[in-house]
């Protein structure tokens, strides 16, 4: 078991190395002088020279790359062009809202999606099943920001039940924090719920057709127990896979959701960086979010071995 985990952990190194090369090369792949791109259209030659010097762009490319890799590995993601603060520090300052939003969404979305998916598979072909499947297609099709504005319009502007936007730190109490996260979580989680509900239904349908389910039903095991213990446990591997892959949806979604609801998180940090051409921030957040994605999927691979003891790589 330990050997397997260590081997999977080592396998993430080449993936992250390629992410690193790609993120580093972005600025260098384009025709033209990276310093001039960063400086923007109204820069004087002196500005450009200063940027080139500060970022070490005047040194040979391989030397720049090695310096950058060594710094990144130690957790130093460079200095923001706009605020002159270390990117790592800026990201950490903005981490709380993003973590709060994504974890609430993840927990709520996964529990709703699995329940709904199991019920749809159990009552396959029923009205409930059709509603769930129709909802799933809708969930994929309506963009995060349109859902967000619809929710704000009805629940905040018209009904005045919930705050329009903003974020309250969890230090101010759990409820005020959650109150601000309700609408963003729904907007962010919709596509994720649709994705997981669909795969849960599909995977459950396959398992429910197995002989041992008929046996369990025939010998009088309670329906709930058949669904949860006999079926869901055996349908779990594809579901967990999609939960892992779907984290990419959450990461993309969080960037847009934070913008809609004016939540000062890591996603907003990136969006603000676009207009300011603050490349170190964009690069740093790319590395962090890619790392999170790789780690989540590493965790999924490890969870497999608990769900299905036959899996031994």
């Amino acid at each position, binding site marked *: 078991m330990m050997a397997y985990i260590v081997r999977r952990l080592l396998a993430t190194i080449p993936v992250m190395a390629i992410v690193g090369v790609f993120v580093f090369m972005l600025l260098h792949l384009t025709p033209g002088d990276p310093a001039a791109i960063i400086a923007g259209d109204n820069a004087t030659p002196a500005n450009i020279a200063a940027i080139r010097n500060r970022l070490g762009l005047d040194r040979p490319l391989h030397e720049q790359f090695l310096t950058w890799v060594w710094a990144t590995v130690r957790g130093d993601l460079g200095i923001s062009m706009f605020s002159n603060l270390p990117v790592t520090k800026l990201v950490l300052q903005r981490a709380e809202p993003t973590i709060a939003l994504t974890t609430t969404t993840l927990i709520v979305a996964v529990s709703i999606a699995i329940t709904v998916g199991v019920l749809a598979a159990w009552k396959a072909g029923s009205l409930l099943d059709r509603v769930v499947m129709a909802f799933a297609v809708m969930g994929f099709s309506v963009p995060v920001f349109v859902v967000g504005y619809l929710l704000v319009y009805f629940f905040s502007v018209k009904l005045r039940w919930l705050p329009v936007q903003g974020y309250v730190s969890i230090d101010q109490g759990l409820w005020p924090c959650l109150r601000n996260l309700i609408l963003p979580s729904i907007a962010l989680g919709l596509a994720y719920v649709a994705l997981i509900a669909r795969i849960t239904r599909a995977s459950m349908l396959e398992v429910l057709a197995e002989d041992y389910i008929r046996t369990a039903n025939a010998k009088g095991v309670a329906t709930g127990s058949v669904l949860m213990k006999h079926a869901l446990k055996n349908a779990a591997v594809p579901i967990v896979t999609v939960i892992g892959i779907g984290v990419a949806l959450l990461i*993309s979604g969080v960037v847009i959701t934070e913008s809609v609801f004016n939540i000062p998180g890591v996603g907003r940090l*990136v969006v603000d960086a676009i207009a300011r051409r603050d490349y170190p921030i964009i690069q740093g957040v790319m590395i962090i979010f890619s790392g999170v994605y790789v780690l989540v999927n590493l965790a999924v691979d490890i969870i497999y071995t608990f769900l299905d003891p036959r899996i031994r790589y």
Partner: protein
Amino acid sequence: MTTADGILATTTPRDRQVWDFIRRNPTIVIGGTMLLLIALGAVFAPWIAGDPIVFKPVNRLKPPSDEFLLGTDSLGRDVFARTVYGARISLLVGLSVAAGSIVAGLFFGLVCGYYRRIDAAVMRLLDGIMAIPAILLAIALVSVMGSSVRVVIIAIIIPEIPRVTRLVRAVVLSVRELPYVDAARSSGARARKILLRHILPSTVPPLIVQATYICASAILTEAGLSFLGAGTPPEFPTWGNMIAQSRLYLASAPWTIFAPGACLALVVLSVNLLGDGLRDHLDPRLARRM
């Protein structure tokens, strides 16, 4: 085996067959019809709608009326005209991204699946690209290369390539050992001919389905990028830009956000329905699983 030809064969103008097709594939018909109407609207935009660019501050934030079907935005521009013209960019981006990523993914997938020596290296590279969240990759590319429709299309294609490659590669790996490919090989056919004549056709049905899903997600990504200010230039009438520029007027002029928002959802829904229908039609085995 059903292939793309299967659809054409079943839509011969015999009424009974047409009716059968509609009954068995309602989602293809519904999705396809909605998409066709939207595409016609986009093509004939100049005849349907007024000027999407001209702005008259006198008319700003007018609610929907006979003069302005969907009202006006904060600069006094015709929301209906902008929404109709917005379909052009969305469809252009969706189709170009689908075509571009299918062509690139097909190339890499065929090569990786068949020539095992370079497979490992290319697949590791693509794994790395897949780990980068697509929207961040696109944001970074657009901010480095400058915002234009062409750059947005390229920026959305790149993260799609690994997914198509994996799909094509999986098909090649399962088909390459089949007896008919063996027969072609032992009768002296060259690798290029085997790939193009004997293996390529098997990738077509799953790729058609994949293309529709890529098209849908590309339309969503373009709108998201434009909404964030990293997409098409702000003066373009795209749905993402319209929503971004109207965000402050949600309470006072909701039509400025919900008109383009509804169209966006409708287009993506049509494409997704078409995709689901095609999947059921082209691969009934997969349909049961999803």
